[in-house]
């Protein structure tokens, strides 16, 4: 009898915890960004996009443990605007955006309050610029016959679509492009009430937990 009562109480506590906790996690998971409102499209008239590319990617794990291990720079803050997109090499486009840093959780090259340029894969470039790195045969084969307008290149499910006015936790690697999103979309985590949700690994952590993990690396 006593055992049943204890089990019932535990069950009820679990139900209450789920009811209280779920909306916060659900909000982080389901509040999908409006891609069209992203700075990805800033400064481009979408009707001028002559071609668009989609990709399926194979990538390394980007759970919190790996992000913390791999990324030199971990910061919170907000995107301000897009600086521009450029060709990294034939067929590969990268975009750079201004990011206002609020807090530095990891790394020494960035200071709080600083505005840094953050790079990520994908972007929109003039067709002429895109074609400049391709051979004549490749241009003809791909049907890139339009020389006017833009080409939109995305990484599919990995594509980052930063929004202005949203607080993010970024995991960055500093290299020849400057600070870059290591796991693209999966290393640009929306902050909601000091909590972040990793869409790849489905892990939820507080910023305090992230700070703690970084301090131990």
């Amino acid at each position, binding site marked *: 009898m006593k055992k049943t009562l204890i089990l019932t109480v535990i069950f009820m506590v679990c139900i209450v915890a789920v009811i209280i906790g779920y909306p916060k996690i659900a909000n982080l998971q389901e509040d999908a960004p409006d891609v069209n409102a992203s700075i990805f499209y800033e400064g481009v008239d979408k009707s001028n996009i*002559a*071609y*668009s*590319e*989609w*990709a*399926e*990617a*194979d*990538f*390394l*794990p*980007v759970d919190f443990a*790996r992000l913390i291990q*791999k990324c030199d720079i971990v910061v919170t803050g907000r995107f301000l605007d897009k600086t521009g997109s450029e060709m*990294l*090499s*034939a*067929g*590969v486009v990268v975009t750079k955006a201004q990011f206002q840093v609020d807090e530095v959780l990891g790394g020494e090259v960035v200071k709080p309050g600083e505005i840094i340029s953050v*790079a990520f*894969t994908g972007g929109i470039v003039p067709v002429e610029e895109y074609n400049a790195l391709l*051979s004549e*045969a*490749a241009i*003809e*084969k*791909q*049907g*890139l*016959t*339009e020389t006017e307008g833009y080409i939109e290149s995305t*990484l*599919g499910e*990995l594509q980052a679509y930063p929004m202005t006015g949203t607080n993010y936790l970024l995991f*960055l*690697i*500093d*290299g*020849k*492009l400057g600070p*870059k999103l*290591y*796991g*693209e979309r*999966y*290393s640009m985590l929306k902050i909601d009430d000091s909590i972040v949700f990793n869409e*790849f690994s489905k892990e939820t952590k507080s910023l305090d937990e992230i700070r703690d993990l970084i301090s131990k690396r």
Partner: protein
Amino acid sequence: MKRRKSFILVIVMALMLTCITPIAASATAGPVFPKNLLWNITDIHYYLVGAAIGYDDEVAAASLNWWRPFGPGSNNLNPNTRTYDQTDSAIDYYRYFDAESAVLAYTNFVRNTSSGKILVEPTVSNWSFGRIYLNGATIRDPDSAANAGMSVFHFTQGVIGHEQGHVFALAHNNTNPHTLMCQTAYGRDVYLVQVPDNDAFNLKH
């Protein structure tokens, strides 16, 4: 008597279920895209562009592994060998270099239409051919290969074989890490084409 009959019936049904289950399991194909590669599957060649030539051994090994002309587990793919004429290739390989990325490789789906537009989402449109981009900074990473329990060569071959699967209209199979179409990030532990991969191929071609 009636109870005995019912008992026998239940036993028979249970035996039937036991027989059916393994058959259903072995016939499970991995997921595929709703749309397909338009290129004739019996005339597939690949082309290595620029620095991608440095990956010719791994690309050749991955291509040969998809080619299964005979016996059980065969498919219609042929010959899946290298061409030196880019207009003759269903798969073009490019190499880029991004050391600041978790991306190993990716595939674009290209459709050349009369209007010159490229319509490339494999869930929306068929595609004329595929372009595979190999990230030279990560695809031969010894740590990643060690994590997957493979040699660097086999790890790279697995990534390339996975991307080829996309060109052939296979989607990700992340619930089964023992398939080539599972992404590395979700724990793929094989580098060769597996039964669900080949079954998925045969669904599309």
